């Protein structure tokens, strides 16, 4: 492993300043030095990452199913539906998603790479279809409804974009210092996809897709100064999106602590989410016993499901979810780390990890009041078939990378 060059300097200077406990410092230094190797694993046991990813994913999916049942049952009864309806639907999607995950995990990297371009075109087609015949839900037009089924193409677009970026950029890794190679064709495609989603008024998903694109470019090795430019452009773009919608401005001002007094609806969801979390306390009020799910929290089974987890299972429950996401992140990181020399794997797995973890962080930050309420679901847990299937398919891709490690090592050596 290569150690970062700055570390000895930093520790050296601290040593000069604090003379009181050199022994403790030395211990801390040893701990720090051991941090990355430990996080990255010993590189030999590829199987452990595979099972960590699979285990964490399945655990999160099962927690999600359980919480979808708990959080949707009351509202379902209120609207005259069966309390199991959403749970059963989500269960079916979970089965479909797990099937997709297992299928992809058995495929070779070459197969997955071959999916990149068709996936992108399919995603573009679907996004255009959404704008043409899509259905609007809560101000966001990003659903396609066909009979009893509804799909959210923007979820699929995230997966497709990650795959496609990997397929395009891995050929250009050595050319990425030249802006033209960064810009074409990744940026146009990304801009088109982000714009299509943004036209459906889904700011949250647009921002996430932008983050995924950024992650792909970042892991491909694009020069940092280009990120500065892109970042600035992204901020401007997001601001324009926010300012042009009263709904979005309302959510943002509510988050900043203004407008809570007069416009009750704006911070209603956020406040009730915090209420739920606080009500849970350390150990929670007990599974199925949330009070806030009694219509106090709109979208309790969806964007705000984490609040119900917090209320029913307490801090223990929310930290377990957080740790599971952490395990997932570290395990994916280990997989990627072993494929450093394979840009496709690095770029795809890296952006998928940023997608899933980024979305989780944004969702939880939103529920805990650290971010404005933007409609981003919690991966694996929130209700939503398209999201669940795509999340699981993404994990399938990563599992395939984890499985093919040995072969790829053999092929490069």
């Amino acid at each position, binding site marked *: 492993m290569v150690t970062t060059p700055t570390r000895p300097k930093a520790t050296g200077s601290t040593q000069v300043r604090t003379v009181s406990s050199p022994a403790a410092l030395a211990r801390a230094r040893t701990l720090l030095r051991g941090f990355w190797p430990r996080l990255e694993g010993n590189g030999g046991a590829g199987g452990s990452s595979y099972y960590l990813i699979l285990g964490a994913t399945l655990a999160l999916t099962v927690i999600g199913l359980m919480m979808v049942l708990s959080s949707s049952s009351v509202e379902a009864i209120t609207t005259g539906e069966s309390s199991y309806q959403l749970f059963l639907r989500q269960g079916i999607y979970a089965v479909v998603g797990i099937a997709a995950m297992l299928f992809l995990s058995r495929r070779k990297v070459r197969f997955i790479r071959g999916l990149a371009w068709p996936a992108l075109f399919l995603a573009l087609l679907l996004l255009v279809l959404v704008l043409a015949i899509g259905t609007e839900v809560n101000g966001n037009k990003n659903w396609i409804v066909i009979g009893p089924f509804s799909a959210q193409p923007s979820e699929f677009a995230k997966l497709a974009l990650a795959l496609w970026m990997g397929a395009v950029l891995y050929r250009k890794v050595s050319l990425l210092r030249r802006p033209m190679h960064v810009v074409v064709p990744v940026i146009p495609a990304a801009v088109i996809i982000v714009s299509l989603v943004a036209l459906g008024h889904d700011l949250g998903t647009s921002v996430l897709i932008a983050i995924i694109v950024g992650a792909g470019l970042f*892991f491909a090795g694009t020069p940092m100064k280009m990120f500065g430019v892109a970042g600035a452009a992204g901020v401007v773009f997001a601001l324009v999106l926010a300012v042009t919608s009263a709904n979005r401005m309302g959510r943002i001002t509510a988050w900043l602590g203004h407008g809570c007094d007069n416009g009750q609806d704006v911070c209603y969801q956020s406040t009730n989410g915090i209420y739920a979390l606080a009500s849970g306390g350390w150990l929670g009020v007990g599974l199925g016993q949330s009070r806030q799910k009694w*219509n106090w929290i709109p979208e309790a089974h969806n964007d705000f499901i984490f609040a119900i987890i917090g209320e029913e299972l307490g801090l223990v429950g929310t930290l377990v979810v957080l740790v599971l996401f*952490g395990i997932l992140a570290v395990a994916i990181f280990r997989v990627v780390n072993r494929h450093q020399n394979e840009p496709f794997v690095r770029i795809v797995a890296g952006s998928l990890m940023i997608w899933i973890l980024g979305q989780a*962080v944004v969702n939880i930050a939103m529920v805990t009041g650290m971010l404005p309420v933007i409609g981003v679901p919690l991966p694996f847990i929130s209700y939503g078939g398209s999201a669940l299937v795509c999340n699981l398919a993404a994990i399938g891709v990563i599992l395939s990378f984890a499985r093919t490690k040995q072969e790829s090592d053999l092929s490069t050596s």
Partner: protein
Amino acid sequence: MARNSSKSTAGSQAAGATRRLRAGIGIVLVLLLVIGGRLFLVQGLDFGGMAEAAVKQRTQVQTLAAARGEIIDSKGNVLARSVIRYDIVVDQTQNAIGEFDRKNAATGKLDTISRDQGIAELAAALGKSDEDVRTAVTGSRTFNYVARTVTPDVNDAVTKLAIPGIYSRPTTQRVYPFGAVAGGVVGFLGADGTPLAGLEQTMDSKLQGKDGQRSFQIGADGARIPYAPAQETPAQDGQSVKLSIDSDIQWYAQQAIQSQVDKVHAEWGNVVVVEVKTGRIIAMADSNAPDPNKPGATAAKDRGVRSVTAAYEPGSTEKMITAASLIQTGKATALEHVVVPPTYTINGQTFTDAFDHGYENRTLAGIVGFSMNTGTVMLGSRLTKQQRYDWLRRFGIGQRTGIELPGEGSGILATPDKWDGRQEYTVLFGQGVAQTTLQTAMAYQAIANNGVRLKPRLVDAYVDPDGTEHPVPTAPGTEVVSPKTAQSVKDILESTVTDGEVKEAKIDGYRVGAKTGTAESPADNGGGFDGYTASLVGMAPMDNPKYVVVAVVQRPQGSIYGITNGPVFTSVMSQVLRANNVAPSTGKPPHLPQFFDK
């Protein structure tokens, strides 16, 4: 970062990739840690008291109204009770929709009803005009009354309409099944339930009970959350108040005094019936009695109970007190001989009688029997001024009786040092002193009860909601005169009926003792006198007096000499005696001589 242009340096490229990967995972892990910290703050520590705020938001507190106790008469008839009624209220914001769906009970399908149709149906159910209902339900208020205190039937009809925003709230209405019978005594409540008059007011603390409270948690749509903690403090219903009033006799007395007042065109009249041995008020009747169901229909001045609020100069009924004090102090006997001149002058004050006479050889009994002011002043002046005052006080004049009614008057009895030259004598025959009908009744009750004056009362018992009765004990009385004196006075009163001038008080089968009083009533404007107060107070049966009845009319029109309360007294007293199965009298009347022979 892969800064150098050398393509072949795979190591440097790998180093850049590693750094970026580490940066990526580092950022992710740091963000997860930050979120974990935030969760610790929000859930573990809850600095903002959000859990409490959440409970507060969900908690619904309902008042469980305590049922107001009933007011019942001595026979168990309900004079006042609370019945369940409903207020129909509206949340105007929820009503402001064009149309709504309603399940049709017959077809089982959803019908779509327009708001206009809903309003029309609601108006029909409430028996109001469309316009009134539309005005009530239109606007932006979340609470407004559409109709108040509707019956359960109407409420059912309204509920079945299932109109959005229309709710009903249970409430109570006070009803008085006997209407004006004892209406003034029972009193009434204001529209907001505040007791405003009568026993409703004075007994409020017993009647009202204690409201309970129920708190539970609800969902945002109002549904109760079954597993959330709930608390309930049950309401403690009020006690019922059982009166000594007998509503039959009360009704009878009211009829009697009302017809008397109408007949003589009096300003008002009243009748009080007291049970001698206990001080229980059997009836307390006023003319123009209010109906508590609609107190507004009665003039404000008639809504109270005049028997306890109105003080007037009693006149000759007070001669009984003068006679009793003379006998008790030994300054005279019932048969004391007095030669009464046609007029009597003392200290420059001249007194005459209601009838012309020469010098007469009178006994004290005869003086009382023929209500002679001259003889009363002659004998009464044997008492010092202080004694006259003290004896009036002993019989309860000038003091509130403490009856359980609001606004009781104490009457007017000035202290002797404030009496003018004539007043010191007129108090002996009931002028220059004012008292209520109840005070008169209780002074006679003392004589009837062998000299022991009791505290009058209207309340026999308090009855718990479970039916347990807590009787109100009779307060110990005060002995005003000895039993012997009381017997002498009773003999005088009976002789007044048998041998004196109050023959109109006779009742067949019962021995009666009575005294009339006719007083000039001071003008309300304070200038002189502008009418008369005619009263008759009596007791029966004289062998063992059980009841005292007082009948009074104020300012009757026409000649005062033609007016008698005899029929009122005898009819009420007969009714009381009969209704209570009092055995006809035994023994012989005393027939005290009204004159003496030289």
